[in-house]
């Protein structure tokens, strides 16, 4: 495969940020199809339009997810990328790897693919970018037999679940995100690999309300760690921050002189509920007023820690704008203990109630958040058998159009209009 001139892409070899063009050129020395990737991309840069086509039926046998078909619309000029399908590998929870494992994946992809990857795709998969239809089955065989590794989800499947690094290297993980993510991934292999739903369904697991995997913005089922007792305070460390012995916000603001740390301005006054105050040099918190926003913990990680009665809040129905507009996930289960001893049966029960309802009433290509929007949160809460609480809304409704049910109204809906007219003439 010949090298193509790429004057436009060459401009992207300049500058301090790592250049994917330089990387592609280096890879092309071993995998010449990368010259055709560069060639076709250069053509797109010149034409200001994509040169890829979608293909719908490629996959490994029996799986309805994990492979996305892709073809060049200029295959004669770039035969190395005529077929260029995507392979999604289910990443290990929170994306720790051993070099040995990665090298195995690299060797596999050198054998069967283009040598290019995405580390990682938007949903979290390790994405292998560009292979041919005949290579798919042999690749899958080697993947499952030699690498003990499976594909992720695509299409109307449960998508590859994703979690933050949680307790592996963070002091705020209020439940074991990796364990829950991995366990549910294993529990729902069928749903990940074969379509089951009206549309895609995503799980994301964040250990605390900082929500580093954007669960509340991006997942149909967001499990976000929280606690329901008191923030743990180390008063000596609070004093340390005030005296300037510790750098506030864990050093996140070290590049600019923002002046001496001011606990009132930087912590107490920024608390959204105003539930913190100083008594002498002791920090006090009215925990019953706290909404666990994390700001004070973020600013003084040495002094403040989440409470000990930990669990998670479950929010349902986030999605990107297509089609009705973007939605954040709606708070549905205020607090749930995440219990590995029951193999997370409590979480599974919530998931399957959602699925049973959505599979029945969801329209084709309708995310569960849109179904809830269309049918209404009150109905959804009833289906979920969840007692409505003020926490489910930001404020009560402002219109009076309540959908009363017949059995809620004294005497029901049936009335005799003849009797009515005897008392109230037309």
């Amino acid at each position, binding site marked *: 495969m010949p090298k193509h001139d790429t004057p436009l892409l060459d401009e992207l070899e300049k500058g301090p940020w790592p250049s994917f063009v330089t990387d592609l050129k280096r890879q092309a020395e071993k995998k010449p199809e990368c010259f055709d990737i560069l060639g076709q991309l250069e053509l797109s840069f010149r034409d200001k339009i994509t040169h890829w086509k979608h*293909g719908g*039926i490629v*996959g490994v046998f029996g799986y309805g*997810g994990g492979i996305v078909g892709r073809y060049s619309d200029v295959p004669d000029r770039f035969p190395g990328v005529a077929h260029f399908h995507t392979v999604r590998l289910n990443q290990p929870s929170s994306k720790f790897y051993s070099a040995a494992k990665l090298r195995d994946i690299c060797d596999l992809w050198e054998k069967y693919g283009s040598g290019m990857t995405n580390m990682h795709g938007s949903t979290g998969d390790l994405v292998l970018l560009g292979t041919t*239809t005949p290579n798919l089955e042999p690749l899958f065989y080697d993947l499952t037999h030699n690498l003990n590794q499976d594909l992720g989800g*695509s*299409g109307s499947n449960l998508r590859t679940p994703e979690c933050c690094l949680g307790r592996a290297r963070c002091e705020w993980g209020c439940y074991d995100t990796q364990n829950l993510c991995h366990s549910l991934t294993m529990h729902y292999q069928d749903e990940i690999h074969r*379509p089951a739903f009206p549309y895609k369904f995503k799980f994301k697991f964040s250990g605390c309300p900082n929500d580093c995997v954007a669960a509340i913005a991006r997942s149909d089922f967001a499990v976000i760690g929280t606690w329901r007792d008191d923030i743990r305070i180390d008063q000596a460390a609070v004093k340390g921050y005030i005296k300037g012995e510790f750098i506030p916000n864990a050093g996140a603001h070290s590049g600019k002189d923002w002046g001496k740390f001011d606990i009132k301005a930087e912590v107490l006054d920024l608390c959204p509920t105003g539930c913190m105050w100083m008594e002498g040099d002791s920090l006090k918190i009215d925990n019953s007023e706290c909404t666990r926003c994390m700001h004070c913990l973020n600013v003084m990680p040495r002094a403040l820690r989440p409470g000990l009665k930990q669990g998670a809040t479950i929010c349902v129905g986030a999605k990107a704008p297509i089609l009705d507009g973007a939605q954040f996930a709606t708070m549905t289960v205020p607090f749930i203990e995440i219990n590995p001893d029951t193999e997370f049966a409590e979480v599974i029960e919530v998931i399957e109630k959602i699925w049973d309802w959505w599979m*029945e009433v969801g329209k084709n290509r309708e995310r569960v958040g849109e179904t809830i929007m269309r049918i209404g949160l009150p109905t959804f809460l009833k289906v979920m058998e969840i007692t409505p609480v003020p926490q489910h809304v930001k404020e009560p409704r402002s219109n009076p159009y309540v959908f009363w049910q017949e059995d809620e109204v004294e005497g029901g809906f049936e009335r005799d209009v003849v009797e009515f007219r005897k008392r109230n003439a037309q």
Partner: protein
Amino acid sequence: MALSKDELKAKILEKALTGPKAQLYVKDFYACDPEAGPRDVKNAANDLVKEGKMTFWSSGSTTMYAAQGRAKDEENR
């Protein structure tokens, strides 16, 4: 009385082979047995794929079913 799994599969395959639509959503098969749950229908349809009688067609974001050979695609052009 819900159909047996084999009866349900036969109805699904018939719809996929002879129905006016070549590509169908899983919901399109719900009518094959109104008494079956969505999960039963989904499992029956996925079984037919495992048996090679139907294929998946995916837009990347949505997945549909088609009888073997009926899906419209680059590979079938």
